[in-house]
């Protein structure tokens, strides 16, 4: 371990410790620290270790998110996440390898700038609570779907290349969780919320069908990442419990990091398993979140919404199966690093633990 890495980990530990110390039993705070810790520990290509400027940006994202949580006002909350969005935009630009010369229109920074401006627009005193809420939801939808602008542009994606995508997914999930749990305006009508609960699953399904027009696995996977973030947004608007939302954000980002398109990597034992679980396929951590939500909703509308989400995800899994190549799988552990093995073990054993844990917490709250 280098001195820089030690300094980095020390800084992270202090910040994380402070965050948990502030609210020791708050799921959002613990989830934030865990989420960032997982993204660092399971950074399979060690991008956060070997690239110092990326490391600085990663710390900045963690810092701004932490700041957003410490400040107890919607203004500061949006300010923190807007800052995080800009840092993530620079992370994307620094690390993604596109087929041809990049053009601004294919940059993830453009939608992220849109997120920043919309998050600022909520401070406009001339906006009513309803309009302000609509602007907030649009900004969160943009944050969730920033990767769609790059469809068809990426070169070969190796495991770990998607680190910025995972960071984006985590930060988006955290923003959605905090916003829907604490800052949802009281002045909005029930009708508006109901309309959104229909519109967002419809958008998810549309994206899933849209996936079928792309042949490459990476393009389909980018759509999956966006769909998963939209799913978290929908759960937030349905007032799902915070612990489920935070689990979806943390484990969703953890799954995204393990996707690989590299044929060399897919021959290893952990490769196909991790790639498959990255899609939230049955048996993985993401599928556990789905299982938990199956019977969580009471209204017919929300149940229908959940059915639409399952349909969308099944469509995406079919698309994944059609585009991925699982040939010549080597079932030895020789080529796998400890990170891959550990991540694979988490994906295999985690779902049961997650379901039992969340159900225990829920029943504890209920009693």
């Amino acid at each position, binding site marked *: 371990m280098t001195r820089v890495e030690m300094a980095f980990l020390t800084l992270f530990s202090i910040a994380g410790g402070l965050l948990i110390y502030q609210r020791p039993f708050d799921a959002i705070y613990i989830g934030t620290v865990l989420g960032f810790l997982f993204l660092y520990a399971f950074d399979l290509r060690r991008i956060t270790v070997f690239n110092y400027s990326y490391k600085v940006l990663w710390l900045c994202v963690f810092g701004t998110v932490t700041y957003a949580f410490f400040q107890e006002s919607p203004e500061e909350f949006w300010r923190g996440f807007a800052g995080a969005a800009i840092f993530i935009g620079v992370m994307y630009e620094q690390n993604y*390898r596109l087929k041809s010369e990049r053009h601004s229109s294919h940059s993830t920074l453009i939608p992220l700038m849109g997120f920043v401006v919309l998050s600022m627009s909520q401070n406009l005193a001339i906006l009513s609570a309803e309009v302000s809420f609509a602007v907030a939801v649009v900004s969160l939808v943009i944050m969730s779907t920033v990767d769609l602008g790059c469809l068809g542009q990426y070169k070969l994606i190796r495991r770990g290349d998607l680190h910025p995508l995972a960071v984006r997914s985590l930060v988006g999930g955290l923003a959605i969780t905090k916003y829907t749990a604490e800052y949802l305006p009281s002045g909005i009508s029930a009708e508006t919320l109901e309309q959104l609960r229909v519109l967002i699953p419809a958008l998810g399904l549309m994206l899933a069908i849209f996936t079928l027009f792309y042949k490459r696995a990476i393009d389909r996977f980018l759509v999956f990442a966006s769909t998963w973030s939209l799913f978290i947004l929908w759960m937030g608007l349905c007032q799902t419990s915070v612990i489920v939302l935070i689990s979806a954000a943390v484990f969703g980002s953890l799954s995204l990091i393990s996707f690989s398109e590299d044929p060399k990597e897919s021959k290893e034992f952990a490769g196909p398993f991790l790639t498959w679980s990255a899609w939230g396929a049955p048996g993985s951590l993401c599928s556990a979140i789905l299982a938990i939500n199956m019977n969580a909703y009471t209204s017919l509308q929300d149940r229908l919404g959940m059915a639409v989400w399952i349909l969308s995800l099944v469509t995406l899994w079919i698309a994944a199966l059609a585009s991925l190549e699982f040939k010549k799988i080597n079932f030895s552990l020789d080529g796998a690093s400890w990170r891959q093995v550990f991540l694979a073990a988490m994906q295999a054993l985690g779902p049961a633990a997650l379901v039992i844990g969340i159900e225990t917490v829920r029943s504890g709250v209920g009693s």
Partner: protein
Amino acid sequence: MTHWGIFLPYLTLLSGFLTVICIDLWGEESDVRAKSFVTLASLAVCAIQTGLLYRVPPLIYMRGSFVLDPLSLYFSMLLLVTILFLQLMRHLEAKSQSSHGDLLVLSLAVFGLAVAQSNRYFLGTVAIVGLTWSVLGLRMIEGTEGGGAKQLHWSMNKSMVLLTLGTFLAALTLSFWNESQLVELARIVVRPLGKPGLETTIAVLVIGIGLMVMMWPAFQQTMSRESARGSWPINLCTQLVLGLASCAIFVRWGIQIFTKVAVGSQEIENVFSPGFLMDTKYVLAVVLTLLPILALGASRVQQGAVFLFINGMAQALFSMTFGNREVISYAMGQLGATVLSAMALILAMESMALSGSSQWVDLKGRGQVFRAPMVAAILSFVSVAGLAPFYNHRVLIKTLRINSPWTLVLIFNLLVVGLFVARVTVLAFQNEKSVPRQSLQLKSTWPELLPYGILIFLGIFWDCLYKYGSFSIRTLFGDL
């Protein structure tokens, strides 16, 4: 009565002048570094002296041709810090090959201080003309301004226009109010003459002079067919000096005179209708719409950056026109934040060996080679653009919370400025193989680290900027 203590910084600068001239006359050719160092030391001592003058009660300096209230002190400090940084960069780059450059830097400080502290319109006008001439001279000597005689002719015309407008302004105030001191005018104008046309004319003149000082040099470089060859410190710092002088004109010549504190509230309001604040708002709304578009359309990176920094100052002035005390405090702090962002950008650009004449194409892929400096440069752009999480963003948030449709101008401005930042970032991290891996222009590692220090300050420890801004506007709110 003027207290003589106010002239201590001027005396320091004068002694610096004399020493540089003496070394030039009787020294040897190898004393180039000594002259540069003397200039640097004079500016540093002058800045310390000006900073320490805040301890003296401001009422001592409230009469006469010079004034040193919190407002003028704030502008003086900002100007001196900018000029000191400019000289520091010149000294490090060893660009001061002749004493002319050093003398012009010193004259920049003298005229800058005079603009910030002058208590009369005419004296201020003369100082502005001196300032613009010093800027032009410095740019020509350091080889940054192309065009030679043509540029000189154009700048002479501009100075004449400025001088004429300023003289006309001084004559008008003297004829109608029988007073030429700004401090006295601020008291007299509270009771309007009942001739709104006259007051509007004076307001328009002040706005015109302010805009000319801020914008003309940037446009001059854009319009010029000769490509500018200047270094980042010279071009950006001189533009900042002019921008700060322009802000001083807007605030001290305009807001201080033509507004009064609203009874029972934390706001200032116009003395006459529609008033200086409203006129300035109209003009700045147009400026804020055009500037980011000009930055996007600029042919050189440096030109775009110059427009972006002017945009940062225009945002601060626009926020001030809403008259809210808290917003004005933040906006005054934003001027300091803009100077700090410029320092971070200049250091980052120097670390990447990116010259002032670099086109957008030269930026391609540079971030893949110089990762840390490029990230610092991009974050400096983010900071000055008013995007989160840096200080300027907070100013804009506070302004947006004011219940006025005019705030939509800021949203449009942010949108276009965001595109500028995105364009720079996308270009910087292209996979370009032909990026030259030159050694750094500055032969040490601190220029790479210092921008991050500045950016951390602007992101987290900015509170003192707000407090100093709040201190400076005590003059406007009569809290002395």
